[in-house]
């Protein structure tokens, strides 16, 4: 499978993971890496389509992902590469699903396998598809953000459904340049302002702990900027293949 070279979520996610002790301390040089603009398209693509399908499926236990629809990234956006029959959709997200102000927004090494449950497939996936389509059309970060904002205002993007969640338990994910690059976790998509007692991370990698001891983290993604979604993370402690995640 080609992308063992696969790489990384947001700097914020690293911070979240670090807060949980899930990732190792980052080498100092990692912090200096930055991605001021989009890299050549090829760097975001996975040459072997079957490798991308397989990588996407590693986001969730095979009992779920084997019957999921799978989408892979093409030059103009995501394409359906395998039909599913359980309502889940698996794909490999790229760095532009980070917050718009994330230093790693254009990190071409990012490979973030995710399997979305049916409500998320209906109401969160359209955001991913739209952001991706705009990025691959050469839009700037600000243009992407404004287009998503306009689409939300015109209700061209669906309202978040209750119970939307996703699995991100791939051992082969590359979520950030920092630390161990990865964290096995679930994500829950909630309306803005949902009170779950979660600790907070901003997209500049600052962690604040209003609730020390909470197993929940509020990711920096979305958060009304512009998508009206609070995305909570919960570490699973095990990878999708059943092995322990440290």
């Amino acid at each position, binding site marked *: 499978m080609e992308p063992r070279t696969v790489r990384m979520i947001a700097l914020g996610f690293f911070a979240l993971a670090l807060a949980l002790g899930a990732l190792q301390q980052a080498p100092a040089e990692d912090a200096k890496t930055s991605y001021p603009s989009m890299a050549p398209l090829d760097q975001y693509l996975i040459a072997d389509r079957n490798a991308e399908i397989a990588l996407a499926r590693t986001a969730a236990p095979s009992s779920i992902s084997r019957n999921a629809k799978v989408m892979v990234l093409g030059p103009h956006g995501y394409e359906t590469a395998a039909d599913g029959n359980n309502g889940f959709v698996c794909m490999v997200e790229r760095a532009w699903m980070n917050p718009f102000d994330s230093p790693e927004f254009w990190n071409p090494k990012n490979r973030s396998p995710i399997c979305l449950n*049916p409500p998320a497939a209906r109401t969160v996936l359209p955001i991913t598809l739209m952001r991706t389509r705009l990025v691959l059309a050469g839009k700037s970060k600000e243009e992407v953000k404004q287009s998503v904002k306009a689409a939300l205002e015109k209700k061209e993007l669906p309202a978040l459904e*209750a119970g939307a969640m996703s*699995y991100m338990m791939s051992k082969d994910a590359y979520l950030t340049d920092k630390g161990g690059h990865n964290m096995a976790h679930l994500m829950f998509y909630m309306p803005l302002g949902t*009170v779950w007692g979660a600790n907070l991370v901003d997209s500049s990698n600052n962690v604040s*702990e209003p609730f*020390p001891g909470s197993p929940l983290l509020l990711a920096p993604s979305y958060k009304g900027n512009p998508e009206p979604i609070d995305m909570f993370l*919960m570490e*699973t*402690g095990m990878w999708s*293949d059943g092995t322990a995640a440290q």
Partner: protein
Amino acid sequence: MNPKRFAAIVSMPLALIFILGVAPLGRAQDSGPLYERMAPIDQYLMTDRNTEIAFARTAAPESISRDAEVLVLGRHGYETVVKGKNGWVCVVERSWMAPFDDPEFLNPDQRVPLCLNPPAARTHLPLTIKTTEFAMAGQSKSQMFDSIKAAYDKKELPLPEPGAMCYMMSKQQYFSRKVGNADPHLMFWFPQKDNLSWGAEFPGSPIDVHEYSPQPITEFDISVSKWSDGTPAPVTSGAQ
């Protein structure tokens, strides 16, 4: 609450329960047919109100529970004994909040602290309060089943609001003879009509699910790695 997958991790937690005096174990019922009917009410009560308050707060990290409202069980139902200021409510549930088909539905030893977030306090706590009132009024299990069903049918009880969830991370929690204090976990509630799929109970999934009856509620449970006091929980088959 749905502790069915949780590993049985019994000896130390039981010792802790004894130390804290929160769950008097080893009653006369233990030698006969178990929990077929309600035990004397005193067996469900905790004699020391401050102990019950402290116990309820152990459901969540102190950073959450210290500002929560706290309810304790009296002879006729739950009473508010501490006003909160963060919208959360902590309470020690008793065995009748287990599914009706749980063989320990009337186990007087069960003590399960929860801290409910604001949506759950508005829409799940009423179920706890109502069920407990029925139990304390002496209703049989089948009467309680009918009463709860009627309450939902008449819309006297609300369906879970979006985002309703709770913390159950007390090291001293005691579910049953079978699972002891189980493991720390979070619970998330939805209306059954939502027909949600979280991939729960699939091999390798860290999520459990329970469909209640007659309560039209779907409950997802996810284990966490630490108790509310920050100490690590034993590894189970769930998320750690």
